[in-house]
């Protein structure tokens, strides 16, 4: 694995390296935290704490290892500690909490049409994304986590195993169960819809 030059520079205390790393990971990290805790204010606080922890621990990080996995592990530990303190039931929850309105954090840029050809296609696709986003937000935390790491961050199963400190077989079964739960949730929320 190639050594990340910014990480090496940060280990030497280079402030520019820090700003480049934050710029590179800000969207992925914030999205991951928001999927974990669901509340934007809490995700913002954890986002700051994660980078402070990075600065604190960067010297103990082996630069030849995967920085992505290390960064997400740090933020995961902070998020789990936070959930344990504020919502102990979140870790074992089988039913989701009420949704925050801005859970999926849609921005103006997200509304720009991409692969959808007509305004109708675009509207339908946006509706499907809203449906799936809301259904996903209702899943337990460990399922939301594995879904976002696999589909949104496009992490490999091995990387997810590193982040979550779980064996590969556990990650795979968690991924399968999360997809099944998501499908059940979609079918239950939108009976007769396009998800069946």
């Amino acid at each position: 694995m190639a050594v990340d030059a910014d990480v090496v520079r940060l280990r030497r205390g280079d402030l520019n390296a820090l700003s480049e790393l934050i710029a590179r990971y800000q969207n992925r990290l914030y999205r991951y935290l928001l999927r974990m805790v669901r509340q934007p204010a809490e995700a913002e606080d954890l986002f700051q704490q994660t980078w402070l922890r990075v600065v604190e621990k960067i010297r103990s990080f082996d630069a030849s290892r995967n920085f992505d996995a290390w960064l997400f592990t740090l933020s995961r530990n902070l998020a789990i500690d936070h959930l344990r303190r504020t919502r102990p039931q979140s870790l074992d929850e089988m039913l989701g909490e009420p949704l925050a309105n801005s859970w999926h954090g849609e921005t103006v840029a997200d509304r720009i049409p991409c692969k959808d050809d007509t305004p109708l296609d675009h509207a339908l696709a946006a509706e499907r994304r809203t449906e799936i986003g809301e259904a996903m937000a209702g899943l337990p935390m460990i399922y939301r986590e594995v879904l976002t790491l696999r589909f949104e961050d496009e992490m490999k199963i091995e990387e997810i195993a590193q982040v979550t400190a779980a064996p590969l077989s556990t990650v795979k079964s968690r991924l399968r169960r999360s997809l099944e739960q998501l499908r059940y949730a979609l079918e239950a929320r939108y009976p007769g819809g396009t998800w069946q």
Partner: protein
Amino acid sequence: MTMSEHDKIRDLLALAAADALTSAEEKQVAEHLRSCIACSNELETWRPIASELRRLPTPQPSSWLVQATLARAQAKLAEQAEHDWNRRVMIVVVAFAWLLTIASWPVFHFVAGRFASLLEPQFSPTQFSYMQFSCTWTSFAAFTALGWLAGGVAAVMLAVRQRGERRLV
């Protein structure tokens, strides 16, 4: 193909849509799908879910949050750099102080021996220091060493306490 194998493949279909199968599992699934329409249809049900999950909008942190994070992290880096510098200076100062202390032992030994021989001239400085003042200067050396050790222990305890307080903050 037995029923249990069919069920096993069916369990893999969600993972197939997530591109999370090993190459051996992929082969197994592909082979099964050629002869099983039910599983092919099932896989087609999983695909739009996987596809839409990949296209969920990415929430973006506000520029204020990024700037605030950067400012806090930079302050932390600066604080750490200062802490490192202070530690280095402290190590040099302590090493220098130890050097001075150790150097003072033979000086004390020599001066004390000379002083004793002036008080009691019948003894040569060497005899006197060996018989009486060797004990005195060894005590002095032990006393200074103990003083330094006690100081070191106190400094370590203070550092541990400060670290604990910083964590609480």
